[in-house]
């Protein structure tokens, strides 16, 4: 907020000033980026060397490897069969100690995913652990498509329909789906 800026004038001597604080915060982060990049590079390599059918991911063209786009092909025997679903990954500077921010880019109708693509999945929130990686997250999301967690929905209507009216659910899924092509 604004007063934080003004506060530098009146800050007690001895406390780090605003500018110093910024420096303090930035320095370790900079050192970190390299290890994050290294980790992501090796994750990418694993994905390339042992590709899993139905999922794939690749860094965006901005060159720092912290933004990825992933694609999930809807699993067979689910309402999403053969749909191409795109997601965006954003990795924080202290990845893998903090979960990446994952969102669906393709419009999707699903009990645990809201209309702007945000996902309610425990391993992306409080259950995140550093042993997870892009591949495991994608596999979890793929299985989430077939087995939604109706107990804690982001989209109530979808949860209701999924339990009570599978045909209508299927129709809504297909109606909402829209291939994005860039």
């Amino acid at each position, binding site marked *: 907020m604004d007063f934080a800026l003004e506060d530098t004038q009146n800050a007690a001597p001895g406390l780090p000033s605003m500018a110093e604080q910024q420096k303090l915060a930035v320095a370790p982060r900079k050192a970190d980026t390299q290890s994050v990049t290294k980790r992501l590079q090796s994750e990418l390599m694993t994905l*390339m060397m042992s590709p899993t059918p139905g999922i794939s991911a690749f860094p*965006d063209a901005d060159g720092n*490897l912290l933004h990825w786009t*992933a694609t999930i092909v809807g699993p067979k025997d689910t309402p999403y069969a053969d749909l*191409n679903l795109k997601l965006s990954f954003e990795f924080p500077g202290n990845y893998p100690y903090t979960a990446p921010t994952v969102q669906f880019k393709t419009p999707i109708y699903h009990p645990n995913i809201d209309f702007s693509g945000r996902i309610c999945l425990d391993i992306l929130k409080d259950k995140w652990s550093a042993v997870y990686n892009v591949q495991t997250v994608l596999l979890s999301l793929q299985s989430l498509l077939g087995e939604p967690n109706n107990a804690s929905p982001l989209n109530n209507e979808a949860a209701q329909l999924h339990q009570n009216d599978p045909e209508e659910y299927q129709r809504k899924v297909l109606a909402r789906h829209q291939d994005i092509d860039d």
Partner: protein
Amino acid sequence: MSTVQTLAPVSPPGGVFASVFSPSWVKPPKYRQRFTPAALSTIPDTKATLHALLRSLLGIGDETFIYGQDRWVPNLGGPFHSHFESCSPPDQIRHPTLADHAAQDAEEAQSPLWRNLPRWRSVVGSEPLKKLLAAVLNDLMTEFVTWSYAGVYRHSLHLHLEFWVQHLFARITQKALASLDGSAASSTISVPDAEAKKWKDMATARLGALRVDELFDIVVDWDTTAPAIDDLRHFTTNPATRSYLTHNFANVLQTRLLHPGASTINILQVYISVIRSFRILDPKGVLLDRVAKKVRRYLREREDTVKVIVAGLLSDTVDEDGQPSTPDPETLADLAVELTNNSAQDGGADASEFDWNDMDWVPDPVDAAPDYMKSKNIDVIGSLITLFDTKDVFVKELQNTLAERLLKNKADFNQEISVLEHLKIRLGDAALQGCEVMLRDVLDSRKVDNVIRRDQGMQDDRGRPRQADDVQLHAKILSRLFWPTVPEQAFHVPQVVLEQQQTYERGFEALKQSRKLTWLNAIGQVEVELELEDRFYRDEVLPWQAVVIYAFQEADANAEAKAEAGFATSPAQKTVTSLASELAMSPTLIRSACIFWVSKRILTEVGRDTFAVLERLPAGIDAVMGGGDDAGAAAGAAAAAGATGGAGRRADDSNATAAAAAVAAEAAAAQAAKEAEEAERQQKMAMYHQFVVSMLTNQGAMPLPRIAMMLGIVVPGGFPFSNEELKEFLAGMIKEGVLHVAHGGAYKVSS
């Protein structure tokens, strides 16, 4: 145009000296001076005569020129020769005695110069003549330095130069000016110190410029040319000359060294010499820093740099008899010597900028670049191992080379241990942990090997085999995680070896619980003894070669059984395909092994791809050659192999035959290696394939340049293809139906 300008030297002194020093032609006068045409026409003539007379007075171009008396005076030293090469050591040059001065004066008095000066002055006037004199003297100084010192590198050269300036150049200049001014040209004229110093500085600058020009050759021949660096130290005393030196040398390096025609070893060798010589020239390392930047950047681009460095570090400095080994031009054995001699004596760490107690501290030189970092690593080894941004590149290569050496059947690994210990000081223990483990593995294996063999009854207490003709199996146990991956070339080992391996495995698992052995059959050495009907053969060969020859032994045993049963006997015969299926080995490798044995004259190729044991050496060699020649051609060996084979047959020369067979064997081995490489390439291609598919799936359609750029970013170790190659690769993928070209030439995944 001022007329006086015609007095200027027609050509400015050689390009060599041009860039540092202000142009040496005479500045135009403030007012014009007019000469009569007659006077004007005499000027070039005057100048030439002046030049010639002064030249001989200064002793230039005359290798027998001596100052004063030509004799050796005890305690005072020898006479001064103007020609440096014929002079006695500079520190023994006699300081001229009165007798010397007198002799020299008498000598000089005979020169026509003194008669001519007044005459010239009356023609062109005093001022122009002085300028003429200045121009000539200026030329002559350069001429003297070049004539006397070019290519001559001796200690205390500056003493010689100072003598010349003091007693010849400055004095004669003084004398000439005095005689021009009309004052009595007295022989006792002495040069004022301040003036003499100016002359000396000028001469030193000329000498410096000469040395800078020669610097590349000086560096290349480093060690014998060390005094030349001393000369340069007198020169590089101010920023202008320092920057002249680095600028000039960097350019020379660029044109003479950093081009594709120079081998990496050459470049590294010169770089090492540069480091050594520049450390003496400028211990602070600023000059080196400026010169070496380009070399380092260039070396980083070369793929084999790290290989050459590591091979050099690990090369043998002494041969088996403890004698210093003869230097092999293919390796940088220099590095190994340097490493052992120089155990970080300059104690690195405490020489930092923050050592407040350092009373000898001096600031960085004024001309240090803003990004100049006083690095501790300005010695040879330090510079080379910090060449790359990360230690990883270096450590990885070190592991590969070390692995190769450790797997050899050597009595001890003292050299490897010592290299590793020395490198630890520089790189830190942590970086070399992997190498340390490898070394430990190999050393421990020896003990473990002994214990297992004893426990499993494979040898008796004294380490001798129980049965004389048993196959003896020794193993080196490697910790998989710490060793570089070994190319897998699987094949079946003979039954006897397999049994031994299983026994060994049991022994190991008893010794170290919950650990498992995986056999790497492809690496190792096998000592083979072959008993043929007329000879006996013993050698150390590679496992796959041994396995192939062993297969012939089995066939032979069968044949003997048949013979006993009364069948007609013939030497064991096998085809490549049957061997390949029997041993589960790639046909190329089999071929290579067979041809190896043909070159040893154990096998012979009786038909295409069919080999038989050569039990008796034939009297002639036609039989062998028939096979060998064919083998050469079939293996795709160089045409030379076939040609040599043909010649051998005609000349009936068995040496040529053996040589041809060896060439064929080499070619076959190369073929096998190529195949392994090809397999690796295929694997890489599959990886690129996956990268491209994944990229286009997720990022949508992309044009070629963007694909190339992205691959460059994400493929570890960089993407080696050019755009053209990538285009071809993508075209291949289109043919496979994986991709198609969307509108605008962008590539897209077909779904």
